[in-house]
């Protein structure tokens, strides 16, 4: 099997992640529910993980690192904390449904900043035009469909200038690109644990620049007589029992990323992307979505002029190549790129893939394209 769907979930994890999950399941109870060793061990693990994330993403206090189920959960907390019905909210043209659906459900007045695929300057201009009078901005750091790296520092700077709070969706950038919460001055940054941070599914992080509004209400192991959620982070946003084994895996994943260095991981993935693009260069019936410069991570969208995307992905799957096809839960991004009707086939890379595997996958794809319908 050649797994090319790491933008959905990094299936291949460091061995330390699997071991950490098992160790936590065997030895840890629920943090904040007792002062006995298995509960306190779990509490220590959670703080270790908060500290590791705070250090990697320059969050001022580890308390401001909140555990969530995934990035969608984190984005829902952030969005419902800052937007309400009728709020004017500016978003990029490359957002995922994890951003657009909560805004739609709230009845927010959503304005899409104009901006072309792989043209960061046009996105900055689009935000500059759209931000005046806005109550909130939400922007993805990297498009999950095209790997397009949006100029988030410039957008954050514009938001600061206009006094507009910013929520950043770092689903595709965490673990790959530098994210400095203090420098960006974002209200919230949301990220999954199971993609570039190499944790298990069911984990996510919300980095908080403010206290936020709870999305879930329930036990926090603190202030139990009060019927309101505690004021303090992280308890305020973490109702219910934590996913301790998941967080143990996430901590191991964060340590792996720190040790490998996100820049080195990104460079490896970009090298694989370029190799794949080179090996597919002479397939005339293929359209590859490639940036001309460095503004693309290890995510490559393509489509055939002859074979439907879902069919092509199924045929690849039959031959052991795992890719994702369709709209990737991001119709807005496809609309911006002109691929809404066809969708694309997305190939996404990981630090565990080799050049040899890329060559094999490219050969399988070329062979499929040569076959008669």
């Amino acid at each position, binding site marked *: 099997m050649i797994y090319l769907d790491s933008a959905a979930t990094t299936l291949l994890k460091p061995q330390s992640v699997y071991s950490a999950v098992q160790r936590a399941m065997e030895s840890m109870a629920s943090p904040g529910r007792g002062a006995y060793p298995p509960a306190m061990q779990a509490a220590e693990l959670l703080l270790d993980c908060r500290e590791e994330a705070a250090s990697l993403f320059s969050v001022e206090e580890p*308390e401001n690192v909140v555990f969530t189920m995934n990035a969608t959960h984190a984005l829902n907390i952030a969005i419902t904390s800052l937007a309400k019905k009728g709020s004017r909210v500016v978003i990029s043209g490359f957002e995922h449904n994890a951003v657009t659906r909560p805004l739609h459900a709230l009845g927010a007045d959503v304005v899409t900043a104009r901006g072309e695929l792989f043209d960061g300057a046009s996105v900055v201009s689009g935000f500059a035009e759209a931000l005046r009078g806005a109550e909130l901005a939400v922007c993805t750091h990297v498009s999950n469909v095209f790997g397009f790296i949006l100029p988030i520092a410039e957008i954050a700077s514009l938001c600061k200038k206009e006094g507009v709070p910013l929520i950043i969706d770092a689903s595709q950038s965490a673990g790959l690109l530098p994210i400095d919460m203090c420098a960006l001055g974002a209200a919230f940054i949301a990220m999954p644990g199971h993609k570039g941070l190499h944790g298990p599914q069911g984990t996510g992080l919300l980095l908080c620049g403010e206290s936020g509004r709870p999305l879930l209400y329930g036990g926090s192991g603190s*202030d139990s007589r009060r019927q309101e959620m*505690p004021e303090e982070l*992280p308890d305020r946003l973490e109702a219910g029992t934590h996913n301790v084994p998941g967080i143990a895996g996430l901590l191991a994943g964060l340590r792996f990323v720190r040790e490998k260095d996100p820049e080195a991981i990104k460079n490896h993935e970009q090298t694989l992307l370029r190799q794949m693009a080179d090996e597919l260069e002479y397939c005339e019936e293929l359209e590859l979505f490639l940036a001309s410069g460095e503004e693309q991570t290890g995510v490559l969208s393509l489509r055939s002029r002859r074979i439907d995307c879902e069919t092509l992905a199924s045929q690849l799957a039959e031959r052991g190549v795992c890719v994702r096809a369709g709209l990737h839960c991001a119709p807005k991004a496809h609309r911006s790129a002109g691929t809404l009707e066809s969708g694309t086939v997305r190939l996404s890379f990981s630090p565990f893939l080799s050049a040899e595997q890329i060559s094999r996958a490219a050969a399988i794809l070329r062979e499929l394209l040569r076959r008669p319908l």
Partner: protein
Amino acid sequence: MMYWIMCRSLTHAQRSARLLERAGITAVVVKAEAGLSENGCRYAVKLSRRFEEAESILRRNDMIRGKIYRQDSTGRYEELRR
């Protein structure tokens, strides 16, 4: 004599204890006795030695966010007003 530094959350208590540990001060994270936590279920950092030094370290790091109690050998608590 025992000192109880009340904390706002378990995470806050753990961070306080880690800060003190790094300065070589032994402190443990405990669930506060019911009489010390008016809203129920509070964590505290408990220590028996080097209290003045510990308090100073925590204040310098903006980590004193609740009440502080001294417990005498009979078990009676007295709030320290600083």
